[in-house]
């Protein structure tokens, strides 16, 4: 029983990181119907910003997190302006390929500046409590709690504020909304800033929880988060959160249940996702968009 509880905590920790990244995919998709494949690499940049700020300026955790989020959000907006905005009228796949290009650029630019894997300094003094045989580390609580708080904040912004209303309006219909006086470009920038900022928060927490970071770490995590977004129903914010926790749970379950050797983790996780997509082809919370003839 304690084992189950222990693994649940691990699953929540991994799942909340996936969910935070998946949110960035799903928000950009909702508003631009474009898959921002550079998002996983922005997550990596977030981890490296955290590393740089903590190492060279020696700031404590909260300012490091905030600076990293702001820096990456700024980078995300710049990328959108320079690389994606010129392609809004172009075929959709051109934007996707551009995003792949931006991702490869970010990976290798980071690699060129920084050829070795880095070790993020400990920003949080990690204390472990033993509650009824289950060891709970303060870091785990921090990662899970902070992610949930950020997700609730995002849910609030999207559902209750004017900016959020504008975002939902743009994802509903792109041609009428500008005529209603909604500043589309500004809303898209805000969407990118929010999505990449959450990615950076995930990167910072990933750097704290699994301290070795390298320029290619965003690829696999990013693709997995994209899968989470699709499983939840791409474009749906709550779906992305659910998808993230599902993938986290499945991955930990495969390792923890010991039915399969742990090297089968990816195999089982992706196999299950395929099966899920066969039964719900539009994801858990996604709505099929009827094609009009």
């Amino acid at each position, binding site marked *: 029983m304690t084992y189950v509880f222990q693994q649940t905590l691990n699953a929540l920790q991994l799942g909340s990181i996936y969910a935070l990244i998946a949110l960035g995919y799903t928000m950009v998709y909702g508003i631009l119907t474009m898959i921002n494949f550079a998002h996983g690499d922005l997550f990596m940049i977030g981890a490296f910003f955290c590393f740089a700020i903590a190492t060279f300026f020696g700031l404590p955790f909260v300012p490091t997190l905030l600076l990293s989020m702001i820096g990456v959000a700024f980078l995300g907006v710049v990328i959108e302006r320079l690389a994606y905005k010129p392609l809004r009228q172009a075929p959709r796949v051109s*934007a996707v390929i551009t995003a792949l290009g931006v991702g490869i650029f970010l990976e290798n630019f980071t690699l060129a500046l920084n050829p070795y894997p880095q070790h993020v300094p400990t920003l949080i003094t990690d204390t472990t409590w033993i509650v009824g045989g289950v060891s709970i580390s303060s870091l785990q609580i921090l990662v899970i709690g902070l992610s949930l708080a950020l997700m609730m904040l995002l849910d609030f912004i999207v559902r209750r504020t004017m900016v959020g209303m504008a975002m939902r309006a743009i994802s509903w219909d792109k041609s009428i909304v500008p005529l209603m006086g909604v500043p589309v470009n500004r809303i898209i920038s805000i969407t990118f800033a929010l999505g990449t900022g959450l990615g950076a928060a995930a990167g910072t927490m990933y750097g704290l929880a699994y301290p070795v970071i390298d320029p290619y770490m965003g690829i696999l995590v990013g*693709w997995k988060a994209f899968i989470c977004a699709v499983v939840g129903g791409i474009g749906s914010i709550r779906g992305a959160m659910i998808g993230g926790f599902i993938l986290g749970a499945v991955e930990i379950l495969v390792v923890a249940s010991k039915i399969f050797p742990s090297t089968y983790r990816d195999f089982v996780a992706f196999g299950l996702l395929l099966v899920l997509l066969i039964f719900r082809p*539009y994801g858990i919370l996604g709505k099929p968009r009827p094609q009009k003839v």
Partner: protein
Amino acid sequence: MAKRWPLPVLLALGFLLSFAIPSLGLLDQYVQLILMYVGINIILAASLNLINGYMGEFSVGHAGFMAIGAYVASILTVLVFPSAAGPWLFPVAVIAGGLGAGLVGMAVAIPSFRTRGDYLAIVTLAFNMIVKSVFENIEAIGGPRGFLGMDKLTTLPWVFFWTVVSLWIMRNLVYSNFGRGVISIREDEIASDLMSVNTRQVKLVAFVVSSFFAGIAGGLFAHLLQFINPRMFDILKSTDILIMVYLGGIGSIAGSVLGATIYTVLLEWLRPLGIWRMVLMPLMLVLLMIYRPRGIMGLREARWFTPVRDLMTGKRHQSLGART
């Protein structure tokens, strides 16, 4: 009358040259190696173009099919066939690799009946990761350490032969009745269904053909490098192939040839820059996409790849579909 007489002559000359270059040593080993990579990449790009360019789906796991071809062909030449007969049975091994990949391609085609676009992308992506994971877990073929012991059976004439054959088959397929069906799925799947295109069958065949040639390229790749491991066929390799396709231009065989050649040669040419070439390369890709969103050829075809009947009626440009 539009004349294209030089094509068979050029092909024959090219074939002779591909024999002459290694035996007479006209080019040094390094340039020959690059040429062979170019050929393999052309097969990969052209076969992915069938799905992504002509059919308008978004498949992102092409390296998975390549991996199956590479492993099947290598297992046959190393473990099954007697090593003395290696060079003679090499084409059999390569074709078997292609068939293996094609068989798996059939399985991947089935989800495409129900979903398309980003959901199909996810299926192919997951497929790519599953293939890599499976090969990593089979200890008998080396697991994550990889598989070796292949002889260097891939030679310049073989690469030239397979490149020409695959381009020829794919071109004929694209301009056949079947190919019109493929293009009609890209333009509007429901409309093409109403026009009595058997969309399921067309999708299935397109996926099988595409993965078959990816498997062929995998077999050639394995016997050129003489060493394969599952990590070679991960998402990064698939991304490479995607870039070649979109760099050259979708819906164009000449585009795939150009894209694969430019990408491969440029990466080699920029090698002195070290890691910075991988910084420069995506920047150039992004700039190209901004100024030419459809890639270099983008739904246009070179004269050589266009059937004579289309040249005569001046139909060299495909319609620009709203959905692509």
